């Protein structure tokens, strides 16, 4: 992808989103060329680089399998990114294409061979995906805001099950919340912690404290 195209993706994320209503977008950016499955594969690999998980099936190349147990893909990152409540959904093909363009550049510089049957980012090893993603956050990288938003959303999928009601997500054993060991609610779906305090003095308060408990 060339410079102006990337800027238009950034602009699309930053400026025109204000004008989007839920559901419909008919912009040139949305019509970017990559096929849906390439988009999904690229974004899954991106999410898996941020919060890695185990392969979903033998021979899974999208999820790199850097660990055992769940990662962002298992936690539903793609579902969240594509959620109709978020205006990024229509931009995903362009964002995936941008990441793939970065992967091509990364590989070319290092003489890494990329298999033509997969999206370029997916063709990179886990170590190379990690190095590439780290570089996206250089303070003067033009596209940094895109990756900031994308990372935030991937994190929300894993750490908060943001695509779902929390009680429901816990009930279904959401892999991210389970990984954190997020506490269970009371039967009415609300949280209360009757045991919450050691209940005894643990330090000496500052001698200059006001009657209300503020610094004097």
């Amino acid at each position, binding site marked *: 992808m060339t410079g102006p195209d990337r800027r238009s993706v950034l602009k699309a994320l930053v400026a025109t989103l204000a004008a989007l209503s839920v559901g419909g977008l008919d912009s040139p950016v949305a019509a970017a060329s990559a096929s849906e499955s390439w988009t999904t594969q690229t974004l899954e690999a991106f999410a898996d680089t941020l919060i890695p998980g185990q392969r979903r099936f033998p021979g899974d190349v999208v999820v790199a399998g850097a*660990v055992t147990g769940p990662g962002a893909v298992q936690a539903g990152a793609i579902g969240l990114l594509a959620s109709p409540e978020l205006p*990024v959904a229509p931009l995903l093909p362009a964002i995936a294409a941008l990441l793939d363009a970065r992967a091509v550049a990364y590989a070319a510089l290092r003489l890494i061979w990329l298999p033509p049957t997969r999206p370029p980012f997916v063709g990179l090893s886990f170590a190379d995906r990690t190095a590439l993603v780290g570089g996206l956050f250089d303070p003067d990288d033009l596209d940094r805001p895109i990756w900031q938003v994308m990372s935030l959303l991937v994190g929300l999928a894993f750490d908060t099950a943001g695509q779902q009601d929390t009680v429901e997500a816990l009930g279904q054993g959401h892999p991210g919340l389970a990984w954190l060991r997020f506490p269970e609610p009371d039967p009415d779906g609300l949280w209360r912690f009757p*045991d919450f305090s050691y209940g005894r003095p643990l*330090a000496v308060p500052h001698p200059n404290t006001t009657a209300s408990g*503020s*610094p004097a």
Partner: protein
Amino acid sequence: MTVQTTDVLVIGSGFGGAIPAYYLAAGGARVTVLERGPRAAAADFTHSMRLGTYNKIVDVIQGDGVAVVAGNCVGGGSVVYFAASLRAPSFVFERHGSLGRRLWPAALTRAALDPWYDRVEEALPVTRTDWPDVSYAGGVLAAACRRAGHTCNPVPVAVDTSACTNCNWMLSGCRFDAKRSLLLNYLPAAEAHGADIRPLHEAQTVTPSPLSGYRYAVGYTVLDPDDYSCTAQAGVIHAKVVVVAAGAVGTPVILQRSALLLGGIPAAVGRYFSGNGDRVSVADIVEDKARTLLGLSRPDGSAYLGLPVGRPITAATYDHLDPTAPEYSRFTLQQIYFPPLTNLLAQAAGSPAWFGVEKRNMRARWRSWLTLLAMTEDDNEGTFGVVPLTGSFTRLAPGLGQGTMTYHPTSRTRGAWDRADTALRDILEKDGLSRVRPWSEGVADTVTAHPLGSARIGDDPATSALTDGHELRGHSGLFVTDGAAVPTSLTVNPSLTIAALAERSVATIVTRTADAGVALRRGVPLPGR
């Protein structure tokens, strides 16, 4: 379009707006409050992190170098905040900053503000807490402080602790009405006296009014409740007095947009923005050490594992608030809890620091994290740039906006952060109790929930936008009473100071309103009294 009029028009319903709205309405003025966000109450506040719930009432506004978290609903930040209610230490009012002379108005000292602090503490009211109110997380900080030779205090809160279930969902609003937000005191009292609060009304401009007897005309748009970036209709209200209280990232933008129409505004509007010197870290507590070094244990047999349990803020150390120490070296260290929305930002060991395998491993120890907030003396180095078309920022999605503020910390601010980081490590890494993990600036820059100072009070017209009576210089009857007016970072959470300053500002607003021919009762009691 019908021409609407009011005596006093208030923009924003947080601390800065609710307090004058109450006193002016109770005094007999016609008061209209425009609030950009929706109206919600206990039954609407859900325990859920599903997108589309909490992010309807709280915004993250990403600027260049800083991200601000702020309330977006009737009651403003008070609805989503953590209710730590602290007075600023005396030395704060004597600060010189990098200008080299006192920044607060001569009339303002801690002693001068104390009577106003008293009032707010009574009105909300604020509860003085004790050790049984301190969560496990606060307890770990306290015990670590003691072990490192420091004091530590339970933190006073605007919470009815007998009704609080320690659910730790304060960011979503209080489902149990234990949090003493403005929805329970100043705002209903204002409405009882006839104030007209209009949710989903976003003020855009303040201009001179052509109507005789009215000074200003405020233009607004009405927002769609399902998509705040859509506008249903627009209108104008003429007022005798205007109070701008849209918060420290909202107020300067409204004034900047209005600058030409108002015939110019002070150069200090949109400058000297402060993030309150906020600096967040995570300490990854070693469970065994919490037991052996601190002697802690819980009924379930664990020593800590208590991150999600309790109220978000329960304990803090005031040991680094020495009034005789040089500027940029004083700070409060406070225990704080954020929902896992922010997990991304904590750094793990090794490289890469904030994502990848190590970071995932660190997440598995999430219950052992202890999140900490340092509030330091920053340099008011933030500025506001090109004004967005509408509102205070460009809305990207519910709860997410792109702001126009720039914040690049100076070496003085960085030095202040370093000192706080070092003190935190001395307390929490002693004998291997934990590893302290800083926040990842690479992903979200500096994050603050305490924006201040973008239209500050002061005596020097060159460096302050407002007189010490909170009136915009050169614009009689136009006031700013929110966090924007606070001249420096405070080394403590700011809401009580914003509220006390708003209480204090009422006298001048009342005088201007009376000057405009509105007969007002004096000596209005605290709300609910």
